[in-house]
């Protein structure tokens, strides 16, 4: 396993474009903390984002994992191109001739995906912990370490999304087209939802939508904005009430894990079937 990871590390780290994207990704993750610096002080209007409670434990776990997940596109580009480049440079063929089995090849890519997701999760945990310790109103360990399921959801979400990218890279073999396909797929999911909502019976659209790959990943961590107490109080004033379920459900995790398994299996069987 270590050998496979080393192989992938050499491949990624010597590539200037991948290196740049990976570094930018982690820099951007760190920059989440800069949100804390957003501060307006114009005469009577005082606005300090950090004091709105977005860095309160345990809400911060929800907020930061949601925001951090937006940057996953950077790694998506890295993953799609690391796969597609193996085809365009024909190095996949050379790797197999040199004695890597097709199983090992997919396994090494999957390990990379899991490592990316894992490092991101640890990273976001540390950043959030530090931010929270600085700005949070509550600092009891029992509160700090509650709601950690958002981190698990974040990890699963990244693994699922990157596995999808991996599969697209193998399927399409060209990085630009694979990324195009990703956007195209997002639109397909949206249109399907729209059509079902319009034509099918009540509730069918939501039920089907929940199982679609990209939406099931998005569903893992729901938008945290309306959960903020400040937002809530504003909503209450204008007579609106949110009754939304923000928690992470085990069946949502299962759906994403199912897709992950399917994507990896399909990548493997595609590779096995193809002549190079």
């Amino acid at each position, binding site marked *: 396993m270590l*050998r496979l990871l*080393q*192989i992938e590390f*050499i*491949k990624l780290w*010597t*590539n*200037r474009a991948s290196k740049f994207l990976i570094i930018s990704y982690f820099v951007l993750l760190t920059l989440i903390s800069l949100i804390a610096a957003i501060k307006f002080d114009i005469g009577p209007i005082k606005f300090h984002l950090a004091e709105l409670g977005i860095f309160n434990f345990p809400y911060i776990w929800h907020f930061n994992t949601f925001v951090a997940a937006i940057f996953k596109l950077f790694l998506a580009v890295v993953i799609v191109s690391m796969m597609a480049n193996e085809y365009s*440079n*024909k*190095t996949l*063929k*050379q*790797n*197999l*001739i*040199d*004695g*890597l*089995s*097709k199983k*090992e090849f997919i396994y090494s890519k999957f390990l990379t995906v899991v490592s990316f997701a894992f490092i991101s999760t640890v990273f976001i945990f540390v950043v959030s912990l530090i931010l929270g310790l600085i700005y949070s109103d509550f600092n009891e360990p029992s509160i700090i370490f509650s709601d950690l399921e958002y981190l698990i959801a974040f990890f699963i979400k990244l693994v699922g999304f990157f596995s999808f990218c991996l599969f697209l890279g193998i399927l399409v073999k060209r990085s630009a087209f694979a990324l195009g396909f990703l956007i195209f797929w997002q639109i397909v999911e949206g249109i399907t939802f729209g059509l079902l909502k319009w034509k099918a019976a009540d509730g069918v659209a939501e039920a089907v939508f929940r199982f679609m790959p990209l939406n099931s990943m998005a569903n893992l961590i729901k938008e945290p904005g309306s959960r903020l107490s400040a937002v809530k109080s504003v909503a209450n004033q204008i007579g609106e009430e949110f009754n939304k379920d923000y928690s992470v459900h085990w069946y949502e995790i299962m759906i994403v894990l199912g897709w992950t398994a399917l994507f990896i299996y399909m990548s493997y069987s595609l590779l*096995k*079937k193809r*002549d*190079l």
Partner: protein
Amino acid sequence: METILTIENLTKKFGYLTAVKDLSFTIEKGNVYGILGPNGSGKSTTLGIVLNVVNRTAGNFSWFDGQISTHEALKKVGAIIERPNFYPYMTAEKNLQLVCKIKGVSSDKVNEKLELVGLIDRKDSKFRTFSLGMKQRLAIASALLNDPEILILDEPTNGLDPQGIHQIRELIKKIAAAGTTILLASHLLDEVEKVCSHVVILRKGVKLYSGRVDEMIASHGFFELKCEDNEKLVSQLESNPIFRKISSDNGLITAFLNEPLDAKEFNKMMFDQGIVLSHLVKRKESLEEQFLTLTENQSN
């Protein structure tokens, strides 16, 4: 003798096209094999199958008597297929270190092999800056990293300039002299003739011959002859059952033998019959002539 590779009834179909048809042969340790055939005769497909990159339609192959799985076996093989494939953004040295990782050997031979192919002073250059000849030599270095039991080369001189071709051939001879088994696929006959002891000949995916180069055709050679009265000579030769075929081209008469006969005896025989030869050469068919005879015979 130790068997390195056994191929049994291997068949590969691409849709309606049969690229390799019912092919069988074995590779023994210590010999230099050539796979000969025109373009599109199934050479690369056959190599692709045994190298785990092309799926077979039917048949079997086994490495090292089938004791280990294909990808484990490939770690003991060095192979170059058609175009050298490396990561363009890595240096020569880094690329070779990566190959070492894949093959699971230590990377202390990287410099030695770069030295062997004459690329040691370019080891820190990126692969994409290399010329085709240099890329091909880097590929050979990479194939030798594990000191392989067998070196497989597919058209190693394709697209190179004369100097590059010469360098690669010298390298192959050097490797063969060190006792490494080599399997060389080529459509260039002189290339195979110069280095190979055994040959497998393919045409349209069908094996025409496999065995030693010098036993390819049961042939006793031929004479190239000239004299003042060519017509008399031809009629003399045609009446003689020793010769199976007589052809004349630009005043040069070629007579193919049915049974052994040496030049001295033949000369004496002609002289006794009143024919004085001005030109007499006894030759064996070159691989090219043998190859053409073989492919012609099959198409009839």
